[in-house]
């Protein structure tokens, strides 16, 4: 039997020697691990919900532009748009993971109603196709464009600026590439709120065909992509770059960096803070348990040292006890978290509208195996860290002093 195995045996026997202390430490680790895992699941559910909202409200899984177009100012932007969009879309349809493709154009225009005129920037979209995929637009009034040829949906700020509501009429005046002005009378079909105040104050959407007519172009500025899932993006983007090297594929989180990326970063930071607090609880729980252990077993530590146990062997025994408690508590916590997720929390948690959204979200607790392992790892590492100071003390108690301890 190896020396480590002997120390392990004694440590495991010692684990529940003082049941009250051990159970206190175990309960702390179990509850903390369960809380951490459920919170991780909640966080994952929130992230997924945010991501789905971002994808299905505005961007799709990503968009394709002519290479070098995005992020630069162009005197004649339409000259850098995608030619022959239908042909391009047919080619893209054959790529892996593609579900739907949505051609779009940007159209700057004056929007007028009731004697008021506001400068806006809109998008021409395929209302019917987009209604099938973009199901998360937050409409505060009305709804999608669908197949109405002379409908318009407005950002809430723009609608308020114009003082219009659903079924009101607005006039759109746009300048085509050759400087000619074109106008169209449109009926308000819906008023949306993305949560980005600036965007909502100027954005509108009209049918793609109408936008192209007003701009006197057959081209499209971008093709939005709906894939089978987020994970399909890298393969799709790689294939698109190979097939159509003139196009640049940009994922949704890059397109919506300000809102989505920052929201995710903010949630991540918040989660990290809460995680730190939970781990601190574990740390002090273990610190307390091991400190009590060392105090109670001082004479025993003295006996072991007198009989020739080295300081490292004493330390190893205490760390094994802490790690054993952490493994047991962490496993029970994971089991508890899983039971919660399939029991009381199986239908998720109804949350009020998040910042920028007009409807609440039902967040499901999405547990993941790698996160469960992370929780277990964190419990063990934190517990080992929590045992360092008491163990250091145990290692350095003079033997004769330890033997005198009652």
């Amino acid at each position: 039997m190896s020396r480590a195995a002997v120390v392990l045996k004694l440590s495991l026997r010692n684990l529940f020697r003082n049941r009250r202390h051990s159970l206190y430490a175990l309960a702390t680790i179990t509850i903390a691990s369960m809380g951490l895992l459920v919170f991780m699941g909640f966080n994952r559910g929130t992230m997924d919900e945010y991501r789905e909202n971002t994808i299905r409200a505005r961007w799709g899984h990503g968009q394709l532009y002519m290479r070098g177009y995005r992020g630069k100012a162009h005197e004649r932007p339409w000259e850098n748009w995608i030619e022959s969009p239908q042909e391009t879309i047919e080619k893209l349809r054959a790529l892996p993971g593609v579900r739907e493709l949505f051609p779009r154009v940007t159209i700057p225009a004056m929007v007028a109603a009731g004697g008021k005129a506001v400068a806006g920037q809109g998008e021409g979209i395929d209302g019917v196709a987009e209604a099938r995929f973009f199901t998360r637009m937050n409409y505060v009034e009305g709804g999608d464009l669908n197949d109405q040829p002379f409908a318009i949906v407005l950002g809430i700020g723009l609608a308020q600026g114009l003082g219009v509501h659903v079924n009101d009429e607005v006039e759109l005046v746009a300048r085509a590439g050759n400087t000619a002005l074109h106008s169209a009378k449109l009926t308000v079909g819906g008023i949306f709120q993305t949560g980005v105040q600036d965007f909502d104050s100027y954005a509108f959407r009209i049918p793609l065909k109408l936008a192209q007519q007003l701009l006197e172009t057959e081209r499209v500025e971008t093709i939005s992509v709906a894939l089978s899932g987020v994970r399909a993006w890298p393969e799709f983007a790689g294939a698109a770059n190979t097939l159509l090297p003139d196009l640049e594929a940009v994922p949704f989180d890059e397109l919506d960096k300000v809102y989505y990326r920052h929201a995710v970063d903010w949630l991540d930071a918040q989660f990290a803070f809460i995680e730190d607090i939970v781990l601190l609880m574990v740390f002090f729980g273990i610190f307390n348990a091991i400190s009590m252990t060392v105090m109670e077993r001082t004479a025993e530590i003295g006996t072991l040292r007198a009989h020739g146990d080295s300081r490292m062997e004493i330390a190893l025994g205490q760390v094994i006890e802490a790690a054993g408690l952490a493994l047991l508590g962490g496993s029970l916590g994971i089991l508890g978290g899983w039971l919660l997720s399939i029991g009381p929390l199986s239908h998720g948690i109804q949350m009020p509208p998040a910042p920028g959204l007009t409807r609440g979200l039902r967040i499901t607790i999405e547990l993941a195996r790698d996160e469960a392992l992370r929780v277990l790892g964190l419990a063990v590492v934190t517990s080992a860290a929590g045992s360092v100071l008491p163990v250091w003390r145990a290692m350095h108690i003079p033997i004769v002093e330890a033997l005198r301890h009652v």
Partner: protein
Amino acid sequence: MALYEARGLSYRYRLNGHHVDALRGVDLEIKNGEFVAIAGPSGSGKTTLLNLIGLLDLPSGGSIHFEGKDVLNLAERERSLLRRERIGFIFQTFNLIPVLSACENVEYFLLKRKIRRAEARRRALEALEKVGIASQADQRPNEMSGGQRQRVAIARALVREPAVVLADEPTAALDQTTGLAVVNVMKHLNRERGITFIFSSHDPKILTAADRVIQLVDGRILQ
């Protein structure tokens, strides 16, 4: 060659801001196979002397040679190793590990010397047999009487076949009959195996069992 040779041993510590001299220039020589008692009233320095020759503490001055080796110049790790290999201890309060059975208490330090489990078990049972307690091998310390626990402690000290067993007041927590029985076990093992025993006591009846009594008073050996 003497088993122990100590010269000018002194031990000073601070108590409530004052220096206390627990030992004052003790010279000591103990030969292999002796059965020696250290006697003296409380506070005379018996425990301090045993701690120093047991390499559990370092003196303020003087020298200690154990089996011819100057042990005060050894590193902490080397002293631990020497204790593990060559010195057995018996304490007044038995100091058994409560989560281990009698047999496991005895075999624990054998297993740590990488002795195979079956061999360690055989030697542990044999040691318990020697001290007359083999039938309680599977009992834990809290299921045993004081005398039985001290016998387990003796078996634990002996099983590693040390050169010397140091026993600090081994009978102090026992009634006189049990105490005498425990000392008789120690003496029997000394005679049978030639293991050196050095024990402290202030009980005259216990001291009569010793071949030699070293009398300590106020940190000095009475000649």
